[in-house]
Structure formats: structure tokens, C-alpha cells
């Protein structure tokens, strides 16, 4: 006993000493104002909101971040964006190239750049010799700057001659892309964030805007504050903080939103709130299998979706379905916002089509405040991946791999022989990792993403990473995918290099280099070019010195295309805080209302109609007759709960960045499971108890958080925690068209840990 007291005293004395040492510099820091030598313009590293930031630099260090007053966020940042600095100087930054000499499972050892590049190039050459062009692949990211995605796309499709180019936007935006393409003929939204300042009704479905896009939520809330008559409808099985400003919250049973959307269309027609003048002029009606039909067919198709039937399917009271439809159609301008709740679904494209249907049926489109605006999750999924065509079925600026004319155009522009680009569509993400497991894809280059954490059904799909040769660019040592990497290239991080990002609203903004890359890090464009040359790709394909040279080429390529941003020179992007395309000339201010005569430069000034959906052959958009279909794995007797995933405001994606910020990490150090109080009572679970989630794939334990955020029958886990890879519990069924997996719904058992 005496001994333990003595130990306690020694411990206390030591702690006192440590505490004093530690607190002295902190006390000094607390009193000191942040002084900076210069502010360098950029965009936030995190979400698809794409807030403008100014990075404060003192000497050769970044010391502060503040919001860019000239960008759409008008100087505001959310808590993540405001605390970006510690991420740059995180203790586990990777600053040296590393290879795994002894194969998978052996330790990573630091090597020179030459050795690392040769190591990767050798593996790729061997894979090409053994399996031909389709034995190699690139797996990219909606976080990589545009120049990097454009370059990688070109190297793989025209250099290695494979269309095995895909990336994490497949897991995120693919259904929104296919939704826009099928309805309007061209990807990307027609509206912008400006619509939030004029809309009189917001229809937010499948999006927790408050936590996933906080600065946009603030803008919506501001609108509501200024004009309390503005109506806000939130449709989400979870009652999140977003619903705090809602006039109407609809908790539907997860996976039944297609019925809800058709039910709203039913009410709109029944109450004669539709706009025949609009759809008579601008819309074609199309059956589910793509055949033309008439409005009467659509009306007959909707007949079964009465509010009462919709209540039966969705659990939303019939009166609320009617209210929502009326709010939507009666408002002077309705803005729809949606995100992963709609996209990450086996019927994600249909759900997207059904949202567009509501806008086309009511004419809530092409006016300030009236628009279907899909929110994007990553800072550059739109600009970097969708627009540059860095996916398995796409080519730059809206061209398709399967289209011979498009391939020929790209071959001519890139100066490669005719027939270089293969006509065969490459592997989409899930198929790519399956092909890696089978050994048909032998080597993959993974850039700026962490698939071992973010893929669905991880136990099945990480087999691909265990089998294939993996070259990876990564900045942080705790990324899960590093466990599988054979070679790791330390890439320059965020403001250590320059590059353009395109956010949700078609806005391209340049992040300028503020500081030198840390340690031995190099800009990714340099890494890609050095690697490709050593792997045997003709260096004439990439005659660039800097990212700016690549931008110049991509800008030229966009000229005259439906993605025209020829007017965005590097110099202009340095001067201005983001510009929205189409922007065909240097003196063009950018476009707020796409497809609108007098606004969109691609609509001829003398066009007979005010709106022109030029992506469609006849200039008309499609209203699709898409029926309700249940999710791939609804709850059943054996697995009676629905499990869903999502974000929390404090963390972003796999938390390799936000986990380095003490404030954010402490707010949410680890994942939990949200359970409705009624369910908790039945299960005998109280707050903090350890609860097992068991699905057909795997089972995991989480601490319980009892809250009525989740409706009964639904449980929610955030996916940021690397120690609790919740995606192991999910299946990997994908949408037929977009090939996007259904992260939002799987069936699970829930019970208290014994």
C-alpha cells in the first residue's frame, strides 16, 4: 500500500513537471495573434461544397486558414475547413517513397524516388507483357485536382491503351451522372448555389446537408431566416440536424423513396398543379424501357401511387405526401437538393430520374431558384472526374468510349494513331476489384483515395488488393489501403501544389501553391509522368512541365464542347475566386442558368424557345415512367433492421485528414451505432452499451447511441472510423446503369453483446 502511494506521488510529480513543460508554450501561443506574410487563394480540401479559402503563410509555413470572401462561401467555413492547418503538419505525413520488397505482408521500406518508380514501372511492364493492356488499371479520385485526373486518363486510355480507368466518384456520383444524362442528355446540374438565395421551396431528399455540406446548409438557413415563408421539405429516414429548419420532415422507410417521389407526382397531377404548357413544349414521356409514350400513359402509370398506397409502402402519412407535393408545385421556385441517400442505391439512377420528373412536370426548372441540384461529396468529383471523363466508360468533355466518333476525336486531339483508344468499356469499380482478385487485372495505380476503407463488402473486395500489384500515392500513414500497397509514392498535399477543382455548381477554382512540398514529396503530375515513361508510355503523350500546361491543353479541348470553359485561363483563375462553366471566352462571366436562352452561351441567342436541352437530339428532356422497386436487401424476419451509413460533421471520408485535428478527433473519436429509443427498449440496450450488428457478410460491435434521429427499424453507423470498417457489413450489389453500390441499405440483426 505504502509503495503504491509512493508510486502515485512520483507519478503526480512527473505529471506536474510534464504539465508545466507542456503548458508553457501553449500559454505563449494563446496570447499571440496569428501574423501572416501573405494569403494564398485556394479551395477547401474537403467536401464538394468547394468553399474558397485563403491560406496564411508565414516564412515557409502555412499558419492559418480563413474563408475567401470572394468565393461563393463569402468568407465562411465550417469547422473542418477552419481547422485545415494541423492536417498539413500531421505527424504521420508520408515524405519518402516506400516499397514492399518481400511482397504483400512484408514491411514497407524507404527507398529513393528512382527505385520506387522503377519498382512500379517494372511491375506494370510485367503485367502488360503477361495480360495485355487490360491487365493494368488506374483507380482515381474525386479529390485529385483536375490536371492529375486528366493526365492519368490520357496515360491509361491512350498510353497503356486500356479503359480500366475508374475511381471513387463511381461510389458517390455515378447515379447522379446517369440521372442527368438520361433525363437531360448531358451531365452536370443546370443550376447553381445562387438558386438557394431565391428559391421559395427547398426539397432536400437523401442528404444530411447540415453535416455533409455545412456551409450550404447555412445558406439555406439564411434564406429561411430572411423569408420565413420559404418552405423546407426534408425527406430522410433519419431526422438529422438538417430537419431542424424543416417545415415538413418525412421519415420514409429506407429504400421506399421511389414510391414517395411517384406519389408526389400523382398528387401534382391529381390536384392540377402540373404545368402542361411547360412539358408540352420541353418534355418527352418515355417508358421504363426507353420507348416514347404520352402524358396519358404517364398519368395511368402514376394512378396506383395514391397517397394512401404511398403511405402503406413508405410509412409517410398520406397527408404529408400531399403537403409535400403542394409545397413543391405551388412555390414560385423550387430547388431540389440530394446526395448519397439517392445516389448510393441499386435504383439510384431511377431515383435521380424521378426527382427530375417532378421539376419537368411542374416547370420548376430554368429559372432562378428552380432547379434540380445534385450535391456532390468530394471537392473535385465534378470538375476532375466527370468532366474529364476519367471513368471506365467516358472520354473527356462528355464523350463516350463506346462511340466511335468520340474516340476518333480524342485520338486526333491527343495525336495518337487511329484505333489507339479501345472500344471496349473498362471495368467499373466493383468489377475492377473483382478482376484484380481473379488475376485478370494484375497491376493497379491508386491515386488519392483509400479503397480498402471505402469499398463496399470489404471482406470480398479487398481480395483484389491482396492479389494485384498496388502502386499508390498517399499522404498519410494511417490510410487503410497502405496495408496492401506494394509501392507508395509520397504525393504533395493540397496547397503544396497547384490544381483546379470543380465543385457541385460547375464552378472551377484554382488552389495555388502556398508552401513547398514536405520532405521528399512531389506533385502527382510529376509522379504520373515519371512513372508512365519508365513503364513504357511514349513521353510525347505528356509534354508538360507543370500542372498549368495540362490545364492549358484541357481548356483548349473543352473549346466548342458542351463543357466549354475556354475562357478560364490560368491567369484568370488566379485573379478570380472560381468561375462557372460554360465560359467560352475570357470576357465571359460564367453561367448561372444552363440551357436558358440569354444565360447559357451554348443556347443560340435566336433560339425560338427560352429553354433548349441541347444534350438531347430533339432538345427535349425526358420524363421517365420509373416504378418503385425495393432495395437489394430489405429487412426481413431473419435480419429485421436496416443499416445505413453516412457522415458526421466532424470527419470527412476516412478521417485520414480530420483525424489529425485534435478538436475534430476528440469530438468523434470512434464510430457508434444510432438506435431509436423504442428499438433500444425492446433490445434492452442503453446508451453506451456494446451492440452487435450482424449482416449476411460479417458482424461488428459498436457502442450504442440512443436517439430518435433514426426511425424505428433503422440503425446508422458513420463510416469514418478505420478501426470499425462498417463497410464490411454491406453487400456490393450495384445499380444496373451507374454501377454505383448500395451503401445506404442492408439488412442487419441488432443485439446487445453478451
Amino acid at each position, binding site marked *: 500500500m505504502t509503495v503504491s502511494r509512493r508510486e502515485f506521488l512520483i507519478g503526480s*510529480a512527473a505529471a*506536474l513537471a510534464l504539465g508545466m513543460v507542456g503548458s508553457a508554450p*501553449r500559454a505563449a501561443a494563446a496570447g499571440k495573434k496569428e501574423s501572416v506574410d501573405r494569403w494564398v487563394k485556394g479551395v477547401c480540401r474537403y467536401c464538394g461544397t468547394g468553399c474558397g479559402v485563403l491560406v496564411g503563410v508565414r516564412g515557409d509555413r502555412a499558419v492559418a486558414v480563413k*474563408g475567401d470572401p470572394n468565393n461563393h462561401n463569402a468568407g465562411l467555413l465550417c469547422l473542418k475547413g477552419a481547422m485545415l492547418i494541423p492536417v498539413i503538419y500531421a505527424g504521420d505525413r508520408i515524405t519518402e517513397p516506400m516499397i514492399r520488397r518481400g511482397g504483400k505482408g512484408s514491411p514497407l521500406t524507404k527507398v529513393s524516388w528512382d527505385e520506387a518508380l522503377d519498382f512500379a514501372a517494372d511491375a506494370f511492364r510485367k503485367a502488360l507483357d503477361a495480360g495485355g493492356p487490360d491487365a493494368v488499371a488506374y483507380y482515381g479520385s474525386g479529390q485529385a485536382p483536375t490536371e492529375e485526373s486528366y493526365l492519368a486518363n490520357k496515360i491509361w486510355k491512350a498510353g497503356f491503351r486500356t479503359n480500366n480507368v475508374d475511381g471513387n466518384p463511381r461510389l458517390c456520383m455515378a447515379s447522379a451522372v446517369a440521372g442527368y444524362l438520361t433525363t437531360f442528355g448531358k451531365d452536370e446540374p443546370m443550376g447553381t448555389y445562387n438558386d438557394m438565395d431565391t428559391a421559395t421551396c427547398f426539397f432536400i431528399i437523401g442528404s444530411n446537408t447540415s453535416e455533409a455540406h455545412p456551409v450550404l446548409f447555412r445558406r439555406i*438557413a439564411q434564406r429561411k431566416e430572411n423569408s420565413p415563408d420559404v418552405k423546407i421539405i426534408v425527406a430522410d429516414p433519419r431526422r438529422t440536424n438538417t430537419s431542424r429548419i424543416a417545415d415538413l420532415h418525412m421519415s420514409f422507410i429506407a429504400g421506399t423513396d421511389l414510391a414517395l417521389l411517384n406519389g408526389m407526382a400523382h398528387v401534382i397531377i391529381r390536384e392540377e398543379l402540373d404545368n402542361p404548357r411547360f412539358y408540352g413544349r420541353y418534355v418527352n414521356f418515355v417508358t421504363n424501357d426507353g420507348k416514347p409514350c404520352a402524358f396519358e400513359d404517364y398519368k395511368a402509370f402514376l394512378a396506383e401511387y395514391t397517397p394512401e398506397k404511398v403511405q402503406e409502402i413508405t410509412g409517410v402519412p398520406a397527408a404529408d405526401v400531399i403537403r409535400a407535393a403542394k409545397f413543391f408545385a405551388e412555390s414560385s421556385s423550387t430547388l431540389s437538393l440530394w446526395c448519397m441517400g439517392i445516389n448510393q442505391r441499386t435504383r439510384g439512377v431511377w431515383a435521380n430520374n424521378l426527382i427530375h420528373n417532378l421539376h419537368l412536370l411542374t416547370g420548376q426548372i430554368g429559372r432562378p431558384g428552380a432547379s434540380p441540384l445534385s450535391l456532390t461529396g468530394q471537392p473535385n468529383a465534378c470538375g476532375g472526374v466527370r468532366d474529364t471523363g476519367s471513368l471506365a466508360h467516358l472520354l473527356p468533355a462528355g464523350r463516350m468510349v463506346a462511340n466511335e466518333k468520340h474516340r476518333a476525336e480524342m485520338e486526333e486531339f491527343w495525336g495518337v494513331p487511329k484505333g489507339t483508344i479501345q472500344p471496349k468499356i473498362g471495368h467499373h469499380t466493383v468489377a475492377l476489384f473483382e478482376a484484380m482478385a481473379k488475376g485478370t487485372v494484375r497491376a493497379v495505380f491508386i491515386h488519392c483515395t483509400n479503397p480498402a476503407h471505402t469499398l463496399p463488402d470489404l471482406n470480398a473486395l479487398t481480395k483484389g488488393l491482396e492479389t494485384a500489384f498496388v502502386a499508390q500515392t498517399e499522404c498519410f500513414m494511417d490510410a487503410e489501403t497502405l496495408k496492401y500497397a506494394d509501392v507508395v509514392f509520397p504525393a504533395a498535399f493540397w496547397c503544396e501544389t497547384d490544381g483546379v477543382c470543380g465543385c457541385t455548381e460547375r464552378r472551377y477554382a484554382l488552389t495555388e501553391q502556398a508552401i513547398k512540398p514536405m520532405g521528399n514529396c512531389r506533385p502527382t503530375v510529376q509522379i504520373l509522368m515519371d512513372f508512365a515513361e519508365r513503364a513504357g508510355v511514349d513521353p510525347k503523350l505528356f509534354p508538360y512541365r507543370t500542372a498549368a500546361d495540362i490545364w492549358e491543353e484541357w481548356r483548349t479541348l473543352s473549346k466548342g464542347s458542351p463543357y466549354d470553359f475556354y475562357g478560364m485561363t490560368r491567369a484568370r483563375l488566379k485573379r478570380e475566386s472560381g468561375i462557372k462553366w460554360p465560359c467560352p471566352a475570357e470576357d465571359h462571366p460564367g453561367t448561372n442558368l444552363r440551357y436558358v436562352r440569354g444565360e447559357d452561351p451554348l443556347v443560340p441567342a435566336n433560339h425560338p424557345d427560352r429553354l433548349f436541352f441541347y444534350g438531347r437530339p430533339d432538345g427535349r428532356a425526358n420524363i421517365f415512367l420509373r416504378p418503385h422497386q425495393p432495395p437489394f436487401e430489405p429487412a426481413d424476419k431473419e435480419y429485421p433492421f436496416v443499416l445505413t451509413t453516412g457522415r458526421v460533421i466532424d470527419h470527412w471520408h476516412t478521417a485520414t485528414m480530420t483525424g489529425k485535428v*485534435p478538436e475534430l478527433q476528440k469530438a468523434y473519436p470512434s464510430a457508434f451505432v444510432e438506435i431509436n429509443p423504442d428499438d433500444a427498449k425492446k433490445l434492452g440496450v442503453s446508451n453506451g452499451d456494446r451492440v452487435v450488428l450482424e449482416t449476411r457478410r460479417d458482424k461488428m460491435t459498436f457502442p450504442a447511441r440512443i436517439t430518435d434521429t433514426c426511425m424505428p427499424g433503422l440503425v446508422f453507423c458513420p463510416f469514418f472510423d478505420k478501426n470499425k470498417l462498417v463497410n464490411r457489413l454491406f453487400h456490393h450489389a450495384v445499380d444496373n446503369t451507374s454501377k454505383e453500390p448500395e451503401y445506404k441499405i442492408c439488412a442487419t440483426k441488432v443485439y446487445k453483446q453478451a
Partner: protein
Amino acid sequence: MRSNVKRTLQVFAVLLLGVGVFFLYLDKAFPRVRCEGAHLSVPEKYADCVSCHAKSTARATQDWKESKHGAMLVKCVVCHGEPDGKGSIPFSANPDPATICARCHDPAMQRMAAKFGGSADCNTCHPRHQNPLHSDAYQHKAPSGKTSF
């Protein structure tokens, strides 16, 4: 018997010293706010500030919750920093507007300065935590469960 008393006194004195040292340590290591020392030993039991401050400083917490910052989930640490001082923002119970407010409100501060000549302290006119929304937009429909507090 006497040696027993002496020994008890010695132990008591040592204990007293130990307790003193311990509190001195807490005072130095956790300036002003001592929540870190109180309950954060198991990572999964880490709490956000609000769960304790709803009891200890109920008024300020409620004001925050009803304010724009509360509705937008601009949490305590964004302006105040971590109470253990180990965070990325220096801890301060009274954050300096010139550095902290300016990170988001720089344009508004400049507009204010141009209009009214500026003030060293934003809180003179905008009392801290008390910036409720002028309409009732945020007050009805608040979910009773906590999403992120």
C-alpha cells in the same frame, strides 16, 4: 503507540502534499476548464463539450444551441479551442475576435469597420452565444435526439 501516530501523521502529510501537487497539475495542464481530467479516459466515452456544459453552464449552452452557430453546428472548439490546450486553436474562454471571428467573418468585420469605424471587440454589439435567429425558423422542429452534440 507514539510511533503509530507519527507514522499516521507522516502519511497524512504526504497524502496532503500529493493532493496539492495533483490539483496544481490539473490547474496547469487544463487551464480554467478541467473536463479533460474529469471523465475522458476511454476514447469511446469522450463527450463533446455540450453534454457537460448543458449542466455546468446551462445558460451559455442553451444560448449557443438556439444561436446561428448552434443551428449550423459550429461547435465550441471552433472558437474556444480544446480545453486541454492540445488542440490546433489556442484555448481561450474569451476568444480574440481579430483572429477567431475573422476566420469566417472577415468580410462582415470589414464592412462594419467601414460603416461604424470598427470596434476592437465584436462582442460589444454581438454578445457571445446570443445571436438567435430573428425569426422562429430554427426554434420549432428541433430534434430531441442529438446528432452531433
